[in-house]
């Protein structure tokens, strides 16, 4: 029994120049926020940009960007939903806010299916928004998209650093390219520089804690105007 999807992933991603996974291993550190701001920043620079929400049981990129859900266009595959200049793929396009309780095998199958049928076309940048944890999707990204580069988000919190360290150890062990650490919700001195040094990784810079993000949720133009977006634009590794 051959799984035909495995044979076509590289073809589907052939037109994508660069793939960046926004990760960290921990929830609530702003991976999705940074992924969305990064995608917006790239699109604003004129880069053809895609965003793939891989937090399959808790997708939020459509909420952050204010993208309407609804079935994507289908013709020779499915097209990412264009919104605010970014092509979005998310399980929420299909299921809205209906819960999708998915065990590991189902996560892998859903990722494989979307990789096999999504027509990203020609892109300068595809951003993968990773779920928390070192589970099926983290392993599947390494397996199915080996050329993916990792932007590791962290925050100035001890428990966050403890968790991010696990992700960094795994990425380093597997030889996955780490673009660098991004300190989100920065509020002063922190252990991020030390954590980066521990793994020979770069600190890309900081995005401040910005309570204006909350009100800007769902509104790309408002998001673009936040201090967080400005800080990210200044350090985005594009």
């Amino acid at each position, binding site marked *: 029994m*051959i799984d035909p*999807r495995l044979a076509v992933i590289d073809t589907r991603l052939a037109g994508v120049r660069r793939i960046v996974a926004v990760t960290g291993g921990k929830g609530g550190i702003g991976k999705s926020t940074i992924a969305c701001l990064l995608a917006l920043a790239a699109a604003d620079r004129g880069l053809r940009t895609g965003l793939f929400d891989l937090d399959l049981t808790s997708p939020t990129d459509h909420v952050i960007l204010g993208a309407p859900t609804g079935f994507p266009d289908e*013709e020779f595959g499915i097209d990412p939903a264009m919104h605010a200049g970014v092509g979005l793929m998310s399980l929420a396009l299909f299921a809205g806010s209906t819960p999708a309780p998915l065990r590991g095998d189902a996560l892998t199958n859903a990722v494989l299916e979307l990789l096999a049928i999504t027509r990203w076309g020609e892109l300068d940048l595809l951003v993968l928004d990773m779920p928390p944890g070192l589970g099926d999707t983290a392993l599947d990204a390494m397996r199915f998209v080996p050329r993916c580069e990792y932007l590791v988000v962290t925050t100035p919190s001890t428990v966050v650093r403890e968790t991010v360290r696990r992700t960094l150890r795994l990425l380093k062990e597997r030889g996955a390219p780490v673009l660098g650490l991004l300190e989100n919700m920065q509020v002063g001195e922190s252990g991020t520089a030390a954590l980066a040094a521990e793994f020979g990784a770069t600190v890309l810079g900081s995005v401040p804690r910005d309570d204006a993000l909350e009100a800007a949720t769902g509104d790309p133009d408002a998001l673009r105007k936040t201090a967080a977006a400005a800080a990210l634009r200044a350090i985005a590794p594009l």
Partner: protein
Amino acid sequence: MHEYALADAVIAAVRKTAADERLARVLRVEVRVGALQSIDEHTFARALDTVRPPDDARFAAVEFALSLVPVRCRCRPCGAEYGPEVGAEADAHGAEAIHFVPELAHSYLRCPRCQSPDFDILEGRGVTIGRIEGERDE
């Protein structure tokens, strides 16, 4: 018609096998279509014909033997084994969602005995390839 993307994947996989096995001609490919995805067999056969590389002599005489695989699920909490009827059990939206991503069965289908969404799909999920028959030039 996202079926073309799946047909395309089948062709890609068959080409890969043909290359790996150094086949001069691929004669017959078993393609199993899981009923969960509600893919129409005729549509899929046409899609396979459309995406087949026309100028690749290895595929000039290939026959795709399609078969529909019924869905078998097993519920984790209660152990029931059952075969859901997507068309009858999910609403139109749910059925279309499952058509695109079969795992959304966990959003729109339930165990008939205990109503749990926590089931394993044992069979009949999506498109897989069985036997590939061909000839080498020797």
